[in-house]
């Protein structure tokens, strides 16, 4: 999915936000005008207000769609609009989080273990901002994530699921935009002792090469947070 506004700042972005907020506020006012005219029983005014709401909704959504600018919730629906690149993980950088136990063994992170984050939003944030943060802030963020992972680890050790979000819906829980496999599915999929470190790896690969050889991935450690080692 394209994210035109990610990382973009300055007057251009502010103007875009003002237009977006105005577009939705206009819809709210037009809808209120319809209800007001209906309550007063004025048929002519009601027809006019409905026409206004229709015209505003059509105009504002077309503005978002044709300009391909974000006016959410009047969306540009820029879904998969670019051409895929063969060299994955170069632009944008592709990150993977791994938790480490006391024995030094690495564990993949279950998508439910980072609640309340949707993992894809967290990874997008990390891609966009994390690596640019000062070291102290990076450690603060990583420490928070490691604590979340350990809470989830304890839940799994107790025989529960790593997350609680939408738990009562069971398998009917709405999947995220990208599907994620459950990694921590049994007591044995997490260590008996708490995680002590969190590592961030950057991964690059060539789509064609990896289609032939699944292990054709270059993994580089970009960051490590170790509990107790932070300043």
């Amino acid at each position: 999915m394209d994210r035109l506004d990610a990382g973009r700042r300055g007057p251009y972005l502010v103007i875009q936000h003002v237009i977006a907020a105005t577009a939705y506020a206009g819809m709210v006012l037009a809808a209120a005008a319809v209800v007001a005219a209906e309550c007063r029983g004025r048929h002519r005014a009601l027809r006019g207000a409905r026409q206004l709401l229709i015209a505003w909704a059509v105009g504002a959504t077309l503005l978002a769609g044709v300009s391909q600018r974000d006016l959410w919730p009047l969306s540009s629906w820029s879904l998969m609009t670019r051409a895929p690149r063969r060299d994955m993980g170069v632009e944008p950088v592709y990150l993977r989080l791994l938790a480490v136990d006391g024995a030094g063994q690495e564990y993949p992170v279950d998508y439910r273990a980072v609640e309340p984050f949707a993992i894809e939003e967290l990874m997008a944030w990390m891609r966009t901002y994390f690596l640019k943060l000062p070291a102290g802030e990076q450690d603060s963020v990583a420490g928070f994530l490691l604590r979340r992972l350990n809470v989830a680890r304890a839940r799994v050790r107790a025989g529960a699921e790593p997350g609680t979000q939408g738990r009562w819906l069971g398998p009917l829980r709405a999947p995220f935009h990208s599907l994620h496999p459950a990694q921590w599915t049994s007591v044995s999929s997490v260590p008996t002792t708490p995680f002590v470190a969190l590592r961030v790896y950057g991964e690059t690969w060539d789509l064609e090469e990896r289609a032939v050889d699944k292990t054709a991935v270059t993994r580089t450690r970009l960051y490590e947070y170790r509990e107790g080692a932070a300043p």
Partner: protein
Amino acid sequence: MIVRLKRAWTDFWFQPESAGNLALARILVALNALWMLASRNYAGMSDVPDAFWRAAPAAIRWRYLIVPGHGDIERVLQGLAAIVLIGALLGIAPRVCCAVAALLLYHLAPLEAAIWTAAPEGRGMTLAPTALLILAAAPSGDAFALWPRARTGSKERRASRYGWALLLIQLLVCEIYFFSAIGKLERTGLAWGSAERMRLWLFWFNQDTQSVVFGTLGPWLAQYAWLCGLIGAATVVMEWTMPLALFWRPSRVVLVPVALAFHVGVLLSMNIHVPEAWLILVFVDWTGLSRRLRRMPGITPPK
């Protein structure tokens, strides 16, 4: 000319529609939004450390009235949103519930991704704030409502006062496909749907082990260039022709099942889920379908 255009505009938007179909659109939109709301912890995002919020553009916060660090207030708002969505679903003061839900979701839904983007499209809540607003302004409680009691009796109402709102919601759904087609043309050109690019997309969505649940169909399809080309061409044709569903009702018989099949295919081959897409069901003429079913031999007619 202007008079003729004005008449065409009015005739298009104010065509008769059944109260039942508009009320069912209300139920579908509310159900979809409630499903997302129950599956996510939007309020919890308010409690994440400030470092996550500091990096993101500040404009996102004022645009959606997001003030990080107020998780308890957000939890109350999320609870309230669930209550009013249930009201909209069951038809308890449905129009008031739709209005309140629209405003709450405009604030709550962006919390999911606001730490890095202002546009949480494709996450299930993009249509709800707008569609619920339209349903609040329209007489969407004239059927399938518990309180106040639905006005329609055994003789179902068809009137122009229902048509415009349903058409607007259908327009929002159509735009998912049509705007996506415009974006593809603008950014990638006509070659977007080429076999080679489809093949790369299939690899793209099937090689990162963090995001692969269905890992068989995509790589299998990628082996056959003609299948990749067919998928690309079919996607382009479907996206560009989707507006036909607004103007020519018979086309819905083809476009709605094709769109549903498309989304199931994307889910199984690319591991991508667009929850808003299920709202394509607002194109189904449910009351007409129910009438036809009642007329079928072996089915007891209503008393």
